[in-house]
């Protein structure tokens, strides 16, 4: 009992022997890692190393790609999300996902973009929706910028604002985890800095997993860093240790820019 309690408080995810394929190509090989609750964990590695796939395996989005396959276990709050009786829709509701390119729903207003997740899950009370929309937009620092134009289209915003809108949209369904797939790679440096600050703030209440190919970003925002290479988890530990005293030669080569 006591051990389980500890597991629950310390780790949000426990990945065990995770393998993933696209068709016959194996992109993840025997990944084992534990992801801590209310911390920012960064996944770094060269292009094509499987970091995005690993992220998408955490909320069962990987399997939505045609010909994609997964084996192994991912425990989320102690429950294996790949168990047969687990509904992927329920899992995804507990995890917000932010994509590389901001993807607000183009035909919806700013308000509706944030409210849609709740609406389609049955929340109709206008007052409740209003307050959640305001709270989420405030959390991402967008409220002051858009409060007078909530009915404007979500795509009328700048790229950085759109990405924060997407984060607000993800927060609105009250997830426990935020999964981010290179969330700032399509943004200018100022917008990116705002998102990074936001990530630090989010880590107070949420478990954040962020895939990034920007090592400075990983060093700035994350508490833990995982280095993936060719589908294998090469090294995983506190960010400070990974960047200052990497144990593995490959990790050192990668973070010093010798390859990748």
């Amino acid at each position: 009992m006591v051990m389980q309690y500890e597991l629950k408080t310390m780790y949000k995810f426990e990945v065990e022997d995770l393998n993933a394929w696209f068709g016959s190509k194996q992109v993840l090989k025997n990944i084992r890692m534990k992801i801590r609750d209310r911390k920012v964990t960064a996944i770094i590695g060269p292009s094509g190393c499987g970091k995005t796939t690993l992220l998408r395996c955490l909320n069962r989005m990987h399997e939505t790609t045609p010909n994609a396959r997964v084996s192994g276990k991912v425990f989320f709050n102690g429950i294996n999300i790949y168990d047969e009786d687990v509904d992927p829709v329920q899992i995804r509701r507990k995890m917000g996902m932010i994509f590389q390119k901001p993807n607000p729903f183009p035909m919806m207003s700013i308000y509706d973009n944030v409210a849609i997740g709740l609406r389609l899950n049955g929340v109709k009370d206008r007052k409740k929706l209003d307050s959640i929309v305001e709270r989420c937009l405030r959390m991402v620092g967008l409220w002051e910028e858009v409060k007078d134009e909530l009915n404007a289209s979500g795509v009328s915003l700048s790229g950085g604002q759109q990405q924060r809108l997407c984060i607000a949209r993800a927060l609105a369904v009250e997830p426990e985890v935020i999964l981010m797939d290179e969330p700032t790679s399509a943004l200018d440096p100022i917008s990116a800095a705002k998102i990074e600050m936001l990530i630090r703030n989010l880590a107070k209440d949420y478990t954040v997993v962020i895939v990034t190919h920007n090592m400075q970003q990983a060093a700035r925002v994350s508490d833990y860093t995982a280095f993936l290479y060719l589908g294998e988890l090469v090294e995983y530990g506190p960010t400070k240790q990974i960047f200052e005293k990497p144990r593995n030669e490959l990790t050192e080569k990668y973070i010093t820019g010798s390859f990748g």
Partner: protein
Amino acid sequence: MRDSYSIRRIKDRLMLILVWSSLILALIPLFSILLEVFFNGVRAISLEFFILPTPTVGETGGIANAIQGTLVTLGLASLMGVPIGLMTGVFLSEYGGSKLSYLVRFINDVLTGLPSIVIGIFGYTLIVASIGFSVVAASFALAIIMIPIVARTTEEALKLVPASIREAALALGIQRWKTTVFIVLSGAKKGIVTGVLLALARIAGESAPILVTMGYWRWWFSGFNKPVSNLALNIYLFAISPFENWRVLAWGSALFLMVLMLGINILIRVLTREKY
């Protein structure tokens, strides 16, 4: 040098003349039809034309019953054809990729090219044979003409919705069917409406399937198991009639249908242009 240059110039001119004369040749019949219909049709236009039903010989009358009948038929045809066409389009775009969807797409394309009289005969054997010439039979035949058009345009419209939008919805924990209905379909709304309007414009001008499924009717609507009057069919029947007042009505109906098509096409343009 100089010679080859002037030859090239002559060839260039010849090509230009050829293209322009083809264009004019193609436009002559088009404009002569438009003008002919317009000047003859305008003579029929009056208040009575829009509010009175088909007249008897020598009386004044109008096409009000035909407008009503056409609207009823188109309405019922849309009720039958649009949902099925829409769902087929959704299947092809969202759940496609299998062998079955290739087959469906192929059959759908074949159906688009089927002569409308064949579809009319199909409606005749299936419905007229049991309940008689009726709105239901005509609408059924028209619905079958609509389905492949709506299905195809829906599929194309849905394919224009980027995959990232579907992913965003799925990642929010929205079920697949809700994602399709509330996110993807609403994103493709304009394209789908365009497809439905195109299909409506197509069936509004159909007369052959109407002839074999409903026939001629000169009174008002009196039930779905009875025929109604139809604009396109009236043009054919009135134009070949010996009565002067009917021939005028035929021109008037032709003008009315032409303006209707123009209206639908302008509506499509307006709808597809206006975007966020």
